[in-house]
């Protein structure tokens, strides 16, 4: 098998150009899917018989919550690749993931809390999923705090990679212990989204939003990655050629 394409991924100029070329291929489908999903979810889908129009926040909440976990996984995998094969670009990918993931986590928390106001009658309920989401936010903040605390880029890369890998081992343990904790202290919420029973008019926009958010993440990641590569390689000579028109 020909592995040149893989080895070229270790070269910053190649990655910089490749990320630039790929970005529109993800950004445009993301924009279309999100626009279509929002139209379908906010306008076409019928109101829920129990929650009325309040359920519509799921079209932003569920994809954000899904992305918050997926970005963490991506970050940990990239960090592990960087740690094992000492690939600088992989570390740059992990570093670019963190702020995006933290933003998705904040979006999931804010929308979850807004949804809770009409449904639970309070902005914050110690629901296991919201609590896990909050802990995930602290994991992201810790990762970014460690990165910014270490001045040497190489050390910051490798130390934060160890933290990301440790975190990914812990995420399921934290999730299940929080669920266990919650089942002791609180009756399960009456209203749960019953995904399989969801009619197609509600489900299809949700799936479009999920796919749209995933593509949006890739587009954002590629853009951030370009910035990250530029910052890291600011002393290199290829940058002058790449940036001069």
């Amino acid at each position, binding site marked *: 098998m020909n592995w040149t394409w893989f080895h070229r991924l270790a070269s910053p100029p190649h990655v910089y150009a490749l990320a630039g070329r790929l970005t529109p291929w993800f950004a445009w489908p993301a924009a279309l899917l999100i626009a279509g999903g929002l139209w379908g979810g906010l306008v076409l889908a019928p109101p829920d018989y129990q929650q009325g129009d309040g359920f519509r926040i799921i079209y932003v909440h569920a994809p954000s919550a899904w992305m918050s976990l997926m970005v963490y996984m991506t970050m940990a995998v990239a960090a592990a690749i960087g*740690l094992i094969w000492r690939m600088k670009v992989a570390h740059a990918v992990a570093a670019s993931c963190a702020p995006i993931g933290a933003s998705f986590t904040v979006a999931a928390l804010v929308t979850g809390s807004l949804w809770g106001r009409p449904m639970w009658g309070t902005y914050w309920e110690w629901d296991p999923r919201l609590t896990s989401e909050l*802990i995930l936010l*602290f*994991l992201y*903040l*810790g990762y970014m*705090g*460690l990165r910014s*605390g*270490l001045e040497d880029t*190489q*050390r910051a890369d*490798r*130390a934060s990679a*160890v*933290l990301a*890998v*440790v*975190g990914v*081992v*812990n995420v399921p*343990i*934290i999730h299940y*212990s*929080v669920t*266990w*904790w919650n089942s*002791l202290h609180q009756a399960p919420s009456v209203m749960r989204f019953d995904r399989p029973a969801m009619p197609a008019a509600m489900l299809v926009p949700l799936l479009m939003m999920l796919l749209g958010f995933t593509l949006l993440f890739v587009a954002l990641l590629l853009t951030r990655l370009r910035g990250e590569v530029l910052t890291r390689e600011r002393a290199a000579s290829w940058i002058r050629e790449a940036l001069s028109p």
Partner: protein
Amino acid sequence: MSAPGVALAPERAAALAVSGAGAAWLALLRDLTLAFRRRGQLVQPLAFFAIVTLLFPLAVSPELTRLREMAPGVLWTAALLASLLALEFLFRDDAYDGTLEQYALSGQSLTALMFAKSAAHWLLTGLPLALMAPLAALSLGAPAAAVAGIVASVAVGSVALSLIGSIGAALTLGMKRSGALLSLLTLPLSLPVLIFGARATQLAIAGEAYLAPLELLGALAVLGVTLAPLAAAAAVRISLE
């Protein structure tokens, strides 16, 4: 050298041609010896634990019925913070005087040496905390019958805390103001320990069977013993590069 005891361990290890376990044992003894020469520092986490416990009756209410309800949460929050407080010193002196570099260069398994350091941290903070926790619990209105359960849960849970903490301490090595960052790194990872520990304590105080959460705490401790020294050793190597 001004402090002969400090850089001695690897040399002694070489002189005796010890195995990995032997080197870890020597590192453990060295940490304990150094700690007992500075007894004042040894008492600090315990005093901290006691004073955090004291805050709650003063801040909330002196009624024993209310305090008894809060006791598990208070005990475990205080234990978590006390363990965290002692973490800052886990590697600091060794990083300053070069002992950590000697460890890394000694040819012995750094993972085993990291395990020894965590074991010393547990013997110096976790175990004393476990012995002191019943006193605090009694003062918060827990019945005397709960003592065994409280000692067991704090003793087992603090093993996991020491090991998780060693990763955070190794990652923040050499940073000037690492205290807040160390808490931000360590506390989210320690939450399962807090949850199961508080639950075991709560059941012990209520006089019910507390074995299930205690076993889960044990599982976390075993997981910590297996994986945390590896991660801590990797983090120490990164800090020395």
